[in-house]
């Protein structure tokens, strides 16, 4: 039962009931106030009117007061004319009420009057007027009618209170139950989702209200989670496969050597091979962790402005000897004039190095690799072109996914994560990476690096970015080494 008090539905019902009750009460108070005021104003108007009428003709005053009193059947009217010395001249009041100013304004007074031969203290609305000849005139009316009106209203309130409260509570319960029903249906779905059935979706009834919009939002989120879960599962399968393959080979080889090897040399060969396979496995783990590290975006703090051109030359310098060994011609073509972007220069270097590494790896002997830096629509674009076999159109989006390797590439050494690392680094920087066909039929990878709006144009030479001169005009930024 105690859980009932915790539910939003109960609290809503209570709040709605309380609110309607308070509203009814406030309305009643207003009506009560206006009604009482109206009744009192009626009396005031009456006594004022009579006082003015009697005062209009001083000679007739006594007579007019007597006439007014004679019309009174219920003994609710009081009036008197007092001589300048305070003696009552005419009317039914024995004395001039103490403290009543003779200013012609109606006031509430308490005084003793004679009713059916008895002295009664009576509450009256009274007005006093001073005549020209020094006489004073008092006209008053008792407040019984107002009191009656009051008690009628209070009785009405007493009668209406219970039903009003009841209806308020009922309204609250009905409204809250409606909300509760929608929440319950959501809860039911959530329970299924929590059990892991991610294909369920929250109910949307098409009314377009807040609940619908909220449910629709959550549904989009669920779809994204489901997609990511599938992806993780896919990656998990790939990792398991890529880890198991070398480990299986390793196990088989060790087992075979254990029983079959006859010389120290044979054992050593086995061990060397085992180390190679182990290193492959470890490199794979390192690469997976690396992608995770980049995707966690922890490194945005290290962002600073730097120039892409010297960095590109440095990548070329790093790979040039390797390219030369394969008789691959490596060229650098920089046409963008001012290619300062904000980012982590080590990561961008790693991304470009991965692209060049791929290009050199897949380009046959005697081919060419071209590094370019152009400005396209205001954004520096790094390009890496090769004369390798290229990537079929339908596979171009796939190559940036984890572990994807185009089928014919399988025989070439690598763990298929290089381009995933490039994609992760690009995403971290809000850069775009894409692959198109190079003019010569090979691959052309493009890294579009829009300048961030607040990028400091001169930043590469500014604070933070440390540049190391290498003597031939090569400049590169490096994080300070500790």
């Amino acid at each position, binding site marked *: 039962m105690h859980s009932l008090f915790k539910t939003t539905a109960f609290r809503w019902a209570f709040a709605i009931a309380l609110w309607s009750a308070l509203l009814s009460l406030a309305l009643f108070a207003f009506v009560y106030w206006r009604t009482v005021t109206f009744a009192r104003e009626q009396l005031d108007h009456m006594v004022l009117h009579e006082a003015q009428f009697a005062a209009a003709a001083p000679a007739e005053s006594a007579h007019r007061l007597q006439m007014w009193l004679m019309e009174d059947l219920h003994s609710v009217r009081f009036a008197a004319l007092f001589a300048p010395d305070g003696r009552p001249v005419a009317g039914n009041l024995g004395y001039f009420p103490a403290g009543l100013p003779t200013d012609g304004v109606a006031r509430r007074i308490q005084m003793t009057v004679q009713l059916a031969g008895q002295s009664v203290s009576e509450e009256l609305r009274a007005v006093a007027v001073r005549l020209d000849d020094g006489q004073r005139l008092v006209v008053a009316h008792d407040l019984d009618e107002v009191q009656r009106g009051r008690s009628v209203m209070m009785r009405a309130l007493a009668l209406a209170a219970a039903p009003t409260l009841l209806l308020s509570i009922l309204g609250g319960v009905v409204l809250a139950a409606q909300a509760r029903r929608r929440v319950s249906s959501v809860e039911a779905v959530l329970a299924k989702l929590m059990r892991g059935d991610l294909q369920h979706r929250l109910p949307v009834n098409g009314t377009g209200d807040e609940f619908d919009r909220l449910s629709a939002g959550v549904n989009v989120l669920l779809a994204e989670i489901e997609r990511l879960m599938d992806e993780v599962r896919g990656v998990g399968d790939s990792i398991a496969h890529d880890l198991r393959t070398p480990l299986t080979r390793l196990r088989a080889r060790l087992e075979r050597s254990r029983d079959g090897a006859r010389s120290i040399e044979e054992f050593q060969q086995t061990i060397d091979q085992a*180390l190679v396979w182990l290193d492959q496995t*470890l*490199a794979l783990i*390192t*690469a997976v*962790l*690396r992608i995770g*590290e980049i995707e966690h975006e*922890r*490194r945005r703090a290290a962002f600073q402005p730097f120039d892409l051109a010297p960095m590109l030359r440095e990548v070329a*310098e*790093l*790979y040039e*000897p*390797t390219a030369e*060994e394969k008789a691959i011609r490596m060229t650098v073509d920089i046409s963008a004039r001012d290619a300062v972007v904000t980012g982590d220069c*080590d990561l961008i*270097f*790693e991304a470009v*190095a991965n692209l060049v*590494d791929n290009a050199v790896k897949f380009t046959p002997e005697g081919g060419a690799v071209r590094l370019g830096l152009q400005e396209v629509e205001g954004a520096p674009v790094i390009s890496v072109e090769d004369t390798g076999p290229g990537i079929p159109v339908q596979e171009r989006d796939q190559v940036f996914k984890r572990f994807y390797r185009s089928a014919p590439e399988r025989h070439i050494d690598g763990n298929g994560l290089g381009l995933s690392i490039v994609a992760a680094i690009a995403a971290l920087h809000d850069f775009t990476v894409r692959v198109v066909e190079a003019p010569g039929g090979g691959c052309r990878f493009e890294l579009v690096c829009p300048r961030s709006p607040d990028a400091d144009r001169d930043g590469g030479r500014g604070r933070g970015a440390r540049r*190391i001169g*290498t*003597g*031939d005009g*090569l400049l590169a930024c*490096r*994080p300070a*080494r*500790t």
Partner: protein
Amino acid sequence: MAKVLLIEDDRETAEEVVADLRGRGHEVQWADTGPTGLDLARDRSWDILVTDRLLPGRDGLSVLQDLRSEGVRTPALVLSALSSVDERIRGLRAGGDDYLVKPFAFAELAARIEALLRRPAEPKETLLRVGSLELDLISSTAKRGGREIELLPREYRLLEYMMRRPGQTITRAMLFQDVWNYNFVPKSNLVDVHIGRLRHKLDGPGEPSLIQNVRGVGFVFSPDA
């Protein structure tokens, strides 16, 4: 050869490391927790500390920080299963002199220890000479015998690094980190190709090679005479 203090909580790993280092002629003591390691390390007779990054109870980095704040300057190598760049920077900031990610090759560990034990003095000399090779640090020129050798800027820095460590094993990862300043995992044959070029320039016809490959580890620069 050297007195090594190893702080490592995993017994199997520790036994392997101890056996390997003893095999290389070092005197090794093993501490299996941070606090015992700290107590032992305070005795300043060690030539080098090798500490694991994550230790039960007491983190390897906090042990190092304490030692450094107490003025213990013994060179320290941090071993860690945490491979991210940030972790490496943290390890060096805490007072580590080098950071090696697990799993590592014993040859790599040995080379790193050797490098820390034989740290080159701050460069004061203007001429490096190893065997018949001379490197003029002022004019940035190299000569072997009487023959002038033309070097590209990167080759010059590579040569200077190796000449400051004659007879010492230098791994590919060390070159990649110290000469190229790159933090990412090197593709191993990249460094080999650069070294191959340098070797080609240094060794004239009939001259013995100054840079030898150390199989599975890296290179050693040794005098020819």
